[in-house]
C-alpha cells in the first residue's frame, strides 16, 4: 500500500477548503454574476488541475 505524500494531502485539504469553506463561496456568490461564475468554474478547474497534478506525480501512471 502506498503512503500518501505531503503534496497529496495538501491537494485534498486545499480543494476541500475551496469547495466547502463558507466565507469563500459566500464572498464570491454574493450577487455579481461574473464573480459567481469565477468561483464555480474556477474551483472546478482547480480540482481538475489537481487531478492532472496527482496523475503526473503517480509512480506507475498509465499502468493498469
Amino acid at each position: 500500500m502506498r503512503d500518501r505524500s505531503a503534496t497529496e494531502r495538501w491537494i485534498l485539504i486545499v480543494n476541500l477548503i475551496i469547495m466547502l469553506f463558507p466565507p469563500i463561496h459566500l464572498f464570491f456568490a454574493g450577487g455579481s454574476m461574473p464573480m459567481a461564475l469565477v468561483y464555480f468554474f474556477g474551483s472546478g478547474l482547480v480540482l481538475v488541475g489537481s487531478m492532472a497534478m496527482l496523475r503526473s506525480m503517480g509512480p506507475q501512471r498509465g499502468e493498469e
Partner: protein
Amino acid sequence: MNFVIGYGMILLFFVVVIYIMERNHRETDNFEEFSVAGRSFGSWFQTMAFLNTWLPGTIFIAFAGLAASAGVIGYYVISYSLLAVLFMYYLADRVFDWGKRHNLKTQSDFVGMRYNSDAVRVTAAIIGVVSMFPWIILGLQSLGLVFSYLSFGYVSPEQAVFVSIAVLAIRQYWTVRLGMRGIVISDMVQGIIAYGVGGLLSIGFIVMLLRSEHGFGQLAESFAALPSFGSDLGPLYYFSIVLTGALGSWCWPDIFVRLFTAKSAQTVRNSAFKAAPLMFLFLALMLTAAMLASSMPEVAAAPDNVWFLLASHGGPVILSIAGICVLAATMGNINALTQATGVHAAQDIFHVKGGTDRQITRTARIIVGITTILAIIGAIMTVNTTAGLLTLALAAYQGIVQLAPSLYLGLLWKRPTASAAVLGMIVGFVVAVVLQFLYPVSIPALGGLTSGVVGLICNTVVLVAVTLLTPAKSIETQRVAALFA
C-alpha cells in the same frame, strides 16, 4: 410523423444497447462475475460506468430545473461531484486492495470485513437497500417525461409513466440475466450518448440563447447569490448540501461497487483522472444552458422541463436526441440501483451466513426482479404525487450519508469498533430522518445546516465516544493492524 421519429429513435437506442450487451455476454452462475464482473474492466469502462451511475436522468430535469429557477446554486452539483471524483483517487488503493485480498463484492461486505461484524454488514445493507428504493421509483417517473415529450402530444404524462414502466420491465430482463458485465458495457454506450451528445447539445443551446438575447445580462441579480445571512435557508445551507453530496457519494452501494469492478487500483485512479474533466465539462455546459434559459417565459413557468423546452426549438429530431440523452442517463442509473439492491440483499442480508455462488446469484436475480416489480407498483401508486416521493428520496439521501463515518473513519483509523459503528449509524440515521421530516430543507436555528449534517455530527460523536470508551479486544486490534499493514 413526429411520433414515429421520437419513438423510432427510442427503439433504435434500445436495439443498439441490447445488441452490444449480447455481443459481450458471458453465461455464468459465478457470483463474482455477476456482482463485480470478475474485476476485469479498464479505466475507460470504469469512467463511463461511474458517470452513468453518478449522473442520472434527473440531472437533465430536477438539477437543470434548479439552475433555471434559482441560478448559480444549481452549480452545487459540480462542486460535490468533483469532490466525489477526488475521493475516488484517495480511496482507490485501500478499498481495491482490501476488496481483492478478501474477495469483497459489495459495500456492506467491505464494512463488515473491516469491523469483522455481521451486525455492521447487515445494518449497512439495510440502510443502503432502503435508501436506494425511492430513487428507482423516481427514475421510472423521469422516464415518463421522456416518453411524454417524444410522443409529441400522443401520450399524456400519466400514460407515459405506464409506457416507461413497460419498457423498463422488458429492459430489466438483460440486467437480471447479464449482471454487472452487462451493466458496465451498456454504461459505456449510454454514457457516450447521455454526456457526450448531451454536452454537444448544451453547446448548441448556449449559442442559440446568446444569439437570441438570453445572455447573462438578462439574469436576475438573485441568480448570482447563494443563501447567506438573513436568508430563509441560512448561510450554512450551501456548505451542507455540498458536504452531504460529497461525503455521501461513496456511501451509495451502486457507486461504491465501481471500486471493485476495476482491474487494479491504478485503473480506479486513472478513471478518476478521466472522469474529472468530462464531468466538469458536461455539467458546466448543461447547467449554464439551463440557467441562461431562465429568461424564456416558458422555462420560467416550468423550469424542470428546461431541457426539453430548449430542445423543442431545434425541431423533432433535436428534441428526440435530447430525450434519448435523458433516457440513456436514466437507464444506467436504474440498472445500477436494481443490481446493487439485488446483490446487497442477497449476499449481505439473506445469505449473510454464507451460501454457494449459485444460490447467492439466484437469490440476487430474484431480488432484482422483485425490486423492479415493487418499483413499478410504487411508480403506478405515485403517478400523480412526485413531490411527496421527492421528499422521501431526499430523506433517503440524508439517511445514506450516515454510512460515511463508519466507512471513512474505518479506512483512516484503526481504532473504531463494530459496536461503535453500528450505534453511530443507527443514531445518525434516526436523527437525520426525524429532522428531515421536521425540516425538509434546512434548519434555520442552526444557520441552515441540513438534517443529514446534524445526523452526521451525532453519528461521528457516538462512533468516536463509544470507540474511546470501549476499546477493541487485543485479538481484534491485531487483526485490524494486520489489515492496515
